[in-house]
């Protein structure tokens, strides 16, 4: 069991690098109003076929592991953490189409591990393979930013007043919409 969510992220993203990803996108969305924490690790690596995916998602395999057979354990640990904290866990993958791992948690859940040192996680990933574009999209209630180790998508989004306090209705965070919104805003940045 990992004591920090950022360690889970490092563990899962290391698999992305092993899958030959060129880009690994890490999204951390804290939504206090909906009491939800969403973590997504999305890569454009080799992906998994259905059989492999099924095997990987089966209950934690034996801890008696041989070299290179950590298959299953990292995901199983994250799933355990997510489900323990009133959340859900999904993996979407297809051969050649990359893999997306999403875990949600109840933000205020008493068992929810802290995010921990995300910086150290990013540093470790950059050092692991500098050719991979490691992106971090942090979407908090008051602060948002996008980091890219290869500067393809880096930008800081102006912090907005917390709608929780101002009473203003806030667009719900929709998984899957992140990228599109970013591209639009990136394009807007180019035009400006």
């Amino acid at each position, binding site marked *: 069991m990992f004591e920090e969510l950022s*360690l889970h992220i490092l563990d899962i993203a*290391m698999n992305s690098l092993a899958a030959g990803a060129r880009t690994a996108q890490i999204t951390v969305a804290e939504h206090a109003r909906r009491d939800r924490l969403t973590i997504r690790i999305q890569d454009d690596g080799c992906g998994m076929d259905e059989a492999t995916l099924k095997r990987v998602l089966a209950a934690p395999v034996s801890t008696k592991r041989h*070299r290179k057979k*950590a298959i299953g354990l990292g995901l199983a640990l994250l799933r355990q953490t997510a489900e323990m904290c009133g959340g859900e866990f999904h993996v979407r993958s297809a051969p050649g189409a990359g893999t997306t791992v999403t875990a949600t948690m109840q933000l205020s859940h008493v068992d929810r591990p802290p995010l921990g040192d*995300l910086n150290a996680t990013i540093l470790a990933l*950059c*050092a*692991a393979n*500098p050719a991979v574009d490691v992106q971090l999209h942090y979407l908090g209630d008051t*602060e948002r930013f996008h980091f890219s180790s290869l500067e393809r998508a880096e930008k800081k989004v102006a912090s907005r007043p917390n709608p929780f306090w101002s009473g203003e209705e806030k667009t719900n965070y929709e998984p899957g919409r992140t990228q599109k919104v970013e591209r639009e805003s990136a394009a807007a940045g180019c035009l400006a």
Partner: protein
Amino acid sequence: MNLEELKKLKEKAQRQVALREGNRKYRVVVSMGTSGIAAGAREVMKTMLDEIEKRGLDDVEVRVTGEVGLEDVEPVVRVEEAGGEKTTYARLDAEKAKKIVAEHLERGKKVDNLAVGKEKKPE
């Protein structure tokens, strides 16, 4: 955590890239599989990068690998010398990592009490 901090980290990582292309004397390989991460490999690696930078060692590159089959003695770090000699250090923490940088990587003296396994002489 904020964007500025992350940018500084990126610079640190980029210096590492430059090292990979230049002349190097030592290569440090940190085991960063699930077991390594759970045992604290991330902090060990971060400490080593900080310490290498602090001491201005420009002939050391730091890399990361997956499971190395030493799950019970993680965190594990392997130091490879340009000549081919390899030393494996196990059960590390931040303090021990600093010691390895100071003794082995800076002065070229192995830290015998932290090393495990048989010495592998270059073939």
